[in-house]
């Protein structure tokens, strides 16, 4: 350790004030504190500090994404095998998937990291570890057939216009990874929507479950239609279906959720509220009767949980503490409405088969307003003369 410390110190001298590499100090700081803990002591009270820091928190979010990433790699390869009619082999699928997915992740990190460093250097602030999360989140919500240049353009837009122009980490209104995806979605719809992009094989067409459900004609059974297209609850839950890289497996998202909740990194309220909102709205449709009833209405409400990107969005996207509501009451409202909007967009809006991304972005915009009302309510209550709350205790 001594050796590393000394080497870092030696290199560090080049980045000091007045030295040639002064401008790139944030880069040095990032590397230095990545290798060795900063070793800074508290200059004023409190003189003792918790062992946790932002690096660890962000790394833990990345760790929570590992099941979804691994599953995404395997499934991408598996779908290629199925599409090409190859015989199935586990390692074959992993290899084929890795060739598609790993470059996407690397490009996302490289382009996102570039902007993060550029802004840190020009604004003279430290490099925030948040980009480690944004980079992989974005990669996992893309279709596996996405051209790499679009990955780079998308993450650039997300980091710069989703985060940095608001003042950087902690100030952004929208989730940067979702801003990136929304940009690609509206700018290059051909590569990110429709039936041809979800399996990384040229010319192969297969509609996603949501598209199948939305296209089922009135009077037909939607479960039957899904079944005919090769989708059932089980394979959608495990994620052996075409879709965005990391989103297909509800199981992998559940594993990530369990990790986030056990370590206390994410707020459980938002995820629970998302699920409640989704189930409530889909139940309303389910029990709606009448001749004009769309076939999609009759989908059992709990099927919505495993379809599309809902599980991924509710666990990893909606819970971003910066762009979500920051009051407890607000978190319930925010999450619930995300669930409701997701179903609304999926079921009754013919333009977009998937609604999670748009509903989270929409609620990101409303989170400050929700918080505003919760805080005003809190202030009103504060100003009322308080009755002595006495708890007798033996």
């Amino acid at each position, binding site marked *: *350790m001594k050796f*590393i410390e000394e080497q870092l110190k030696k290199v560090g001298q080049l980045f000091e004030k007045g030295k040639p590499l002064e401008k790139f100090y944030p880069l040095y*700081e990032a590397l230095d*504190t*990545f*290798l*060795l*803990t*900063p*070793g*800074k*002591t*508290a200059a*004023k*009270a*409190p*003189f*003792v*500090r*918790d*062992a*946790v*820091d*932002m*690096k*660890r*928190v962000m*790394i*833990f979010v990345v760790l929570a994404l590992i099941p979804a990433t691994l599953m995404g790699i395997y499934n991408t390869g598996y779908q290629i095998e199925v599409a090409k009619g190859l015989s199935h082999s586990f390692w074959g699928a992993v290899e084929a998937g890795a060739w598609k997915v790993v470059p996407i992740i690397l490009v996302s990190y490289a382009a996102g990291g570039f902007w993060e460093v550029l802004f840190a250097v020009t604004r003279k602030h*430290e490099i*925030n*570890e*948040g980009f480690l999360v944004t980079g992989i989140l974005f990669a996992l919500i893309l279709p596996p057939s996405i051209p790499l240049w679009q990955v780079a353009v998308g993450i650039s837009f997300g980091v710069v216009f989703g985060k940095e122009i608001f003042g*950087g*980490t*902690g*100030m952004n209104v929208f989730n940067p990874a979702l801003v990136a995806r929304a940009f690609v979605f509206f700018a290059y719809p051909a590569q990110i929507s429709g039936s041809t992009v979800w399996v990384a094989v040229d010319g192969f067409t297969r509609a996603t479950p949501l598209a199948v459900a939305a296209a089922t004609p009135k009077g037909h059974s939607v479960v039957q239609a899904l079944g005919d297209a090769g989708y059932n609850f089980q394979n959608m839950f495990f994620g052996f279906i075409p879709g965005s890289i990391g989103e297909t497996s509800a199981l992998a998202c559940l594993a990530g959720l369990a990790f986030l909740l*056990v*370590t*206390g*990194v994410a*707020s459980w309220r938002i995820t629970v509220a998302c699920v409640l909102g989704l189930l409530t709205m889909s139940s309303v449709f389910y029990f709606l009767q009448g001749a004009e009833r769309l076939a999609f209405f009759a989908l059992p409400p709990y099927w919505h949980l495993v379809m599309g990107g809902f599980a991924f969005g509710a666990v990893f996207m909606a819970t971003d*503490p*910066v762009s979500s509501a*920051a*009051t*407890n009451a607000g978190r319930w409202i925010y999450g619930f409405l995300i669930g409701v909007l997701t179903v609304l967009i999926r079921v009754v809006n013919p333009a977009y088969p998937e609604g999670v991304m748009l509903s989270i972005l929409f609620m990101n915009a409303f989170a400050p307003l929700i*918080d505003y009302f919760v*805080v005003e309510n*809190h*202030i009103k209550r*504060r*100003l009322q003369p*308080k009755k*002595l*709350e*006495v*708890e*007798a*205790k033996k």
Partner: protein
Amino acid sequence: MATFQIKQGRDIKLKGAAPKEIVTLSLPRQVAVVPSDFKGIKASLCVKVNDAVKVGTPLFEDKHCPEIRIVSPVSGRVAAIDRGEKRFLEDIVVESDGRDEAVAFRKFSASEISGLSKEDVEKTLLQSGLWPVLRQRPFSKVAHPHEPPKSIFVHAMNTEPLAPDVDFILQGKEEQFQAGLNVLRRLTKGKVYLCAKHGSRSKALTQARDVETHYFAGPHPAGNVSTHIHYLDPIHKGDHVWYVEAQDVARAGSLFLEGVYSPERVVAVTGEGAGRKFYAKTIVGAPVSLLLKGSGLEGMRCVSGSVLAGREVGKDGYLSFYDSQLTVIPAGGKRTFLGWLSPGSDKYTFSRTFVSSFLPPRKEVSLTTDKHGSDRAIVLNHIYDPLVPLDIMVYFLLKAVISEDIEEAERLGILECDEEDFALCSFACPSKTDVGGIIREGLELIEREG
């Protein structure tokens, strides 16, 4: 009388508590009075170097309210008046002649005190130099004699890490303490609240008369003044509340009973870095070196007060006027390889991101002053509220202060708070945000502009 069960907050069980034995130390050869201990006071000197002083001779007074004076705790001569940048008055060092001569005041019997007028009590407290033990909220500054409080709080419990046991300190001072309470009664038309820890067996506290006694149970900051005020008589805009440490109430009692300014102070010497841990009977302004005689202080940091709310004084410094605790902990700051990846079965954390979070809690923890991370933007905003028992939305209050929106900060309750109430938030914040410091800046801004 009521008991309040506080749910929010956490106790940090540090290693190095002082066993309950009082050792009377010899009179220090030098003491110092530090003007910056007295918030809200603009010091105007009354002495020059080499002036002879007695116990109770004024050293400086407030420029705006000259009745408030700060006096010498020993007799002897003024050895030094240290000034820093821009002639900022750093401290006044007094060398003791060991004779303990004191300025004399009128004595009263216990029954006479209750018959005194408000003006008489005020005059005696101000003249004797004991007045500054009274502090006011908002802003935690020395109480202003012309701004009468709506109530007075006696702070008779402490939940800071390794905090001195108030019950123990008051042992044998029951009579002075009660006399002091009677003195306080004279100062306000409102109530005098005595706030003690749940389960206290101190006779001075449980048998106190003519005041409202309340008990607080639960983790730190259940023992903070703000917590007590918040539950009993919350502060709104325009209110003043005074508060005073229990030990100083006993000093006020002995001033009236015995007719002399008593500089006595019992101090808990704590922390794993202190060679000997004990309760020291000494005087206010005592040098740290006297309290830590015989401790090897290499690589240690000396804090007057607790590790959460104290002030670093260094091994050549002096105890702060209001503190009855000295904490010595290792400086730490050793760099470790890939620390963010370590499972951390020995790490201390409120979070659940280390293996240690899932092991049975240790009885005592050893902590250094290591920050364990670098400063970052605030991202996790849900960790503050469970650590603050006040009805405050911490994250939104921080935002209001950072954007200098005074009106919003007041509406969110900043006037009820003090820096120390957010020490646990700063402790737990993974972004290493100085939450208390931001609140203090907000309060300073309001004081300047309001």
